[in-house]
């Protein structure tokens, strides 16, 4: 009898994470949907004019801004991350992997505000001097985000590579292939779904990152036309204006949250399904 009660109680506890997720979705949608309905979904996401205190709610510049910085982050962080993964998986000596892996995980622990700050004091001035423009730019945000997603890319794709059965590798080596040929023609292909999942999850992190982006992206309300142009992302839009928004303006920020939530939900579901497929 008592055991049964404990089991029931634990089931309720076990539903806490799922319940929280649903509650988050519920509240963001309750607050944001009325405005999307009022403005019209098409006008909300396809109009370029954002002047929330005067009744203009178009978030197209922010959607494109998020897209631009995320793609740049993926090129930079994805490339560097996969290179690191391959090196750690096959070429680095054992003893060094034991040191390098925790060190790279440390990158994940550094607070995002510190990354943003490094962007402001090092990267932005460098971009301004080297390429011109204000420095606060798509490029700066893309590079900082690229560094921030490195640990995600490396941790998950390394797991995927290590999960490839040893017999695949041995078979290939026995046929006379070099370790590099084996790595990119056999192991990489076998671990493909995990590696893709790592990149999609990293994309989700880049789209969702807020504080670091606010500090380096310049936050101008323009559709970015060059990597050196300042840009405002969906997340920055919320965080910049939450402090003083009220009424429809505040609801519009929640509506921005709805769009962000949907993008993240799609990305993460794809990633989780891709990873499950592997098992």
């Amino acid at each position, binding site marked *: 009898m008592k055991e049964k009660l404990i089991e029931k109680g634990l089931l309720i506890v076990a539903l806490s994470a799922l319940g929280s997720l649903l509650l988050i979705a519920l509240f963001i949608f309750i607050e944001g949907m009325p405005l999307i309905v009022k403005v019209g979904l098409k006008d909300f996401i396809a109009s370029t004019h954002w002047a929330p205190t005067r009744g203009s709610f178009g978030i197209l510049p922010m959607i494109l801004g998020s897209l631009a910085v995320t793609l740049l982050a993926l090129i930079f962080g994805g490339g560097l991350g996969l290179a690191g993964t391959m*090196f750690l998986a096959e*070429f680095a000596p054992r003893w060094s992997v034991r040191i390098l892996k925790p060190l790279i995980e440390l990158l994940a622990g550094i607070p995002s505000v510190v990354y943003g700050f490094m962007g402001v004091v090092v990267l932005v001035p460098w971009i301004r001097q080297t390429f011109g423009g204000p420095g606060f730019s798509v490029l700066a945000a893309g590079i900082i985000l690229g560094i921030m997603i490195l640990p995600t890319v490396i941790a998950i794709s390394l797991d995927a590579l290590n999960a490839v059965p040893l017999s695949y590798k041995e078979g290939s080596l026995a046929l006379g292939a070099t370790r590099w040929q084996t790595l990119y023609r056999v192991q990489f292909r076998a671990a493909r779904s995990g590696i893709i999942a790592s990149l999609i999850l990293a994309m989700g992190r880049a789209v969702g990152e807020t504080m670091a982006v606010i500090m380096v992206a310049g936050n101008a309300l323009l559709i970015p036309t060059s990597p050196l142009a300042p840009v405002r992302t969906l997340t920055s839009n919320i965080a910049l204006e939450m402090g003083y928004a009220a009424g429809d303006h505040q609801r519009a920020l929640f509506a921005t949250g709805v769009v962000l939530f949907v993008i993240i939900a799609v990305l993460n579901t794809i990633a989780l399904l891709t990873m499950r497929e592997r098992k």
Partner: protein
Amino acid sequence: MISRPLVVQRVVWLVLAVLTLFTLAILIFILAFISARGARVITPEFLFSLPERMGKEGGILPTLIATIYIAVVAIVVATPFGVGTAVYLTEYTRESALTRIIRFGADALAGVPSIIFGLFGFILFVIRLKMGWSILAGGLTLAVMILPTIIRTSEEAIRAIPYQLREVSYSLGGTRSQTIMRVVLPNALPGILTGVILGLGRSVAETAAVIFTAGSSLRIPRTILDPGRTMAVHFYILAREGLSMERAYGTAFLLIVVILLINTVAYLLMFRLTRRLK
């Protein structure tokens, strides 16, 4: 004469090594850059005195207190839920549609961006439940945020315990809950602590989710319903408003040192657990 594929392999090795070292160099550069400018700012006076003129001068005592206060609330709330979920998933069920849904919930929650947690905490805790900007609202928001971390690490730790240990308990007449409380959880403790400590690290580092739920008041929070400004939020405001670069570097240095310490402890605990079970 070396064959062409081996030459290619040499070149690839070199390129990958350089890129990996570059990744490492970024990490070392960040740590060195902040340490070189921030370490000398840290004095007992800086740590334990009140800020003056919005943080331009003086110390950071209130932000230290608010950070600890909020992180403790988050951990106290999230740990029972996280460990309970892990126990349910490992000890009470087989793989089924239900466990898949529970795991999906935890994984999906882990992917929610912190600004969304901020919006959620603001509307539910601060506004609807009328907690106002407070330690409580901030702590509860962070509790939801770190829940997946605690679930995942606890589950791994519990799964790592050999089944024989449980069989011994059952053979002595122990019930399931007795077995869990006296055999499973004590043995999994280092792993569970790892999850809790990682959650602590995330709480200390977080900005977007706390700035809209705990506020940014520079007073020392006394009760759980007072607002408070955490170290990370204080650092953000110092840096963004250009109040004092010197103090921004100092606060950044302190943040990094605290988080490195926290993560190192978590890592060593996990290392000890996995070694003992082998």
